[in-house]
């Protein structure tokens, strides 16, 4: 059924159609509307047989999810940013225990400085936690990926994060096709756990494992993700047959067949990239793009196949490995082992900075001439950076950096105004 609704509402409806039995919720922008939507459905009875738990922290949210999943029921939660970091220990634990929890990440920057807007720093920080990570391009795909996520998680006994760009998707009102209950029931069978806390068959879950078996346990977690490289495209194909639209899969290519330049990106940014690719094509440039949907497991073979004929690859990243550059670039370069082409990392859209068509056009033209640095920060205000570095060279007590930059942007000067209105501070 076609609806014009907010992305978060679309996800909440998708989750409800998957019949979760425990949903735990802790508020953090920008994921909050999703759990609010679910809470309302539980409260008004339209989502029957589901326990909605208001917890006291994200750490508790994931811990409650661990308990309910281990007790054998389908479990869901959502978070963003600082919330994901606060639950980090339990995020690793859920994967280590092999519990098929599904969690939405409304992607948001990580502080300090505190920032509520979109980038991928949060989910990227958990890339090696053992969760499968799927990135949605559109609200329709976000909705569809959640339906696939429960199936995927439960088939593999592995938790799945569905990552959707905060605000850009979570708060955007778009047309989405919401399937009916019978369609979803036909795709997502009832949950049959591999391990369950059951007095009729007592097991110990979470025992202490020493050097004699730890490597094997970890290898099996890796092996599970390698199996997901087969399962993810199979589920996407089955989803397309049953629902009549393509969503998910490992990667999606766009006009890459004869492309000399290929842009790689995750999530909603791909829409803008594709529009600019079309524009460049009209100007006769051989350019295409690759959208990575499955970041964990990382589809090395599929990425290699998509990029191997290009002359250069530009990886657009909404995250930063401080002191190195790109995070997605690492995987892309690993996939290109033995293939000689120019690789560029572009850090873009941090903390919600808009990635405009105009900036992308400039960037793609620079790439086309191989005039890019190894690592480029898109639309970096170099004047502000240079002025701040000068200031730090000139004095020791320069005060908080972020505040000085904001002051310079607002007033043209970083000079402190602490004496204004505070006469007692005057000497």
């Amino acid at each position, binding site marked *: 059924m076609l609806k014009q609704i907010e992305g978060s509402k679309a996800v909440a409806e998708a989750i409800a159609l998957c019949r979760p*039995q*425990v949903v*735990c919720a802790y508020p953090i922008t920008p994921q909050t509307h999703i759990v609010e939507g679910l809470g309302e459905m539980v409260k008004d009875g339209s989502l029957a*047989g*589901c*326990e909605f*738990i*208001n*917890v*006291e*922290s994200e*750490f*508790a949210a994931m*811990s*409650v*999810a*661990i*308990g*309910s*999943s*281990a*007790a*054998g*029921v389908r*479990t869901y939660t959502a978070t963003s940013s600082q919330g994901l970091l606060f639950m980090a*220990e*339990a995020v690793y*634990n859920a994967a280590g*225990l092999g519990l098929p929890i599904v969690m939405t990440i409304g992607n948001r920057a990580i502080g300090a400085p505190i920032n509520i807007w979109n980038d991928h720093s949060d989910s990227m920080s958990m890339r090696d936690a053992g969760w499968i990570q799927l990135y949605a391009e559109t609200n329709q795909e976000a909705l569809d990926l959640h339906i696939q996520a429960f199936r995927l998680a439960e088939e593999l006994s592995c938790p799945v994060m569905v990552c959707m760009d905060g605000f850009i998707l979570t708060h955007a009102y778009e047309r989405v096709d919401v399937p009916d209950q019978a369609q979803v029931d036909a795709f997502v069978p009832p949950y049959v756990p591999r391990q369950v*806390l*059951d*007095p009729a*068959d*007592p*097991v*110990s*879950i*979470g*025992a*202490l*494992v*020493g050097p*004699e*078996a730890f490597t094997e346990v970890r290898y099996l977690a890796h092996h599970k993700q390698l199996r997901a490289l087969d399962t993810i495209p199979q589920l996407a194909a089955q989803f397309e047959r049953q629902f009549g639209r393509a969503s998910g899969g490992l990667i999606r290519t766009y006009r890459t067949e004869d492309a000399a330049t290929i842009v790689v990106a995750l999530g909603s940014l791909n829409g803008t990239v594709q529009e600019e690719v079309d524009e460049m094509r009209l100007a006769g440039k051989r350019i295409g793009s690759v959208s990575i949907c499955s970041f964990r497991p990382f589809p090395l073979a599929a990425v290699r196949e998509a990029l191997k004929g290009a002359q250069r690859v530009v990886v657009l990243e909404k995250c930063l490995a401080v002191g190195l550059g790109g995070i997605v670039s690492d995987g892309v370069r690993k996939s290109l082992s033995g293939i000689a082409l120019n690789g560029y990392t572009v850090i873009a859209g941090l903390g919600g900075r808009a990635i405009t068509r105009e900036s992308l056009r400039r960037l793609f033209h620079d790439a086309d001439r191989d005039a890019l640095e190894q690592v480029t920060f898109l639309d970096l205000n170099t004047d502000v950076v240079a002025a701040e570095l000068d200031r730090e060279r000139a004095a020791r007590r320069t005060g908080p950096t972020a505040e000085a930059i904001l002051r310079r942007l607002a007033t043209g000067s970083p000079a402190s105004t602490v004496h204004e209105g505070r006469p007692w501070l005057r000497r």
Partner: protein
Amino acid sequence: MVETLIKFYQTGTFTVGNRLLREDQRAVQADMQRTNSLNSGHRACQGCGEALGARYAIDAAMRATGNRLIAVNATGCLEVFSTPYPESSWQVPWIHSLFGNAAAVASGVAAALRAQGRDDVRVIAQGGDGGTTDIGFGCLSGMFERNDDVLYICYDNEAYMNTGVQRSSATPPAARTATTPAVGASPGNVFGTGKNVPRIAMAHRIPYVATASVANLRDLERKVTAAMDIRGARYLHILVPCPLGWGSAPDDTIRIARLAVETGLFPLFEARHGEVTDRTPIRHRHPVEEYLKLQKRYAHLFGCPPDHGRIALLQAMADRNIAEYDLAEVAA
């Protein structure tokens, strides 16, 4: 379970009365058919109060629930010594997740049972004092506040024993730990610090809070049984001496646990919905020195000359408990 007090006149105690009772009135531990929920063969130290407390408590909970019990465990000694891969001492379905989240995991298990309509299966969470009063405190308070159907049991040995005896917020004043060493002008843990979690639990107005001691088996079993008879959040705080951390003889564990009660340092009481409803009066009151002298963690108090000032402060704490909980037994 009905607790029947039978005074055994030759020794002046109640504790040997078990064999004089009808079989169905005897302690769970006296039952040859008890579940041994924490089975023998685990790796706890000799004289471990926590191993004893856990077996007493879980066996009693198993009997009270008709063996339909799920246990959640915080990281700590109990978790480590009971489940070295590939062995497990647990005869109950058992899960260990993290150090600070046992209460929340138990909330999740309880929620799953509710969602499945399984009101016959009950949930226990358990941890040491570090996992309860410090790192797990947020999750514990959340579980209390939501009144989730979980009995949380804290086995309090008054420090982080698993990591090598470091101070926790349950470490008593003057006690020596690895992070409150017995050196300097005021050796051991400082006075005026620490956290009384049973009282904090009561402040949540949860249906049931109690303290118990491994020296008083029947009282402990009765409290577990009472707790399992109630729905909602419940809290049981059991004092469990640790020979390693306290520097006591393994065969003094019960004696020390009893002295903690009989000095007034560890009052035994029950509270319902935030009000104290029952307490165990002290029949033979002992000065705190008798308790302290058996433990090397207090050895610095008994040098030459003894630290009379700090011993008096500890005695004052015991006296305050006795007054606060009305523990002085009135002569019959």
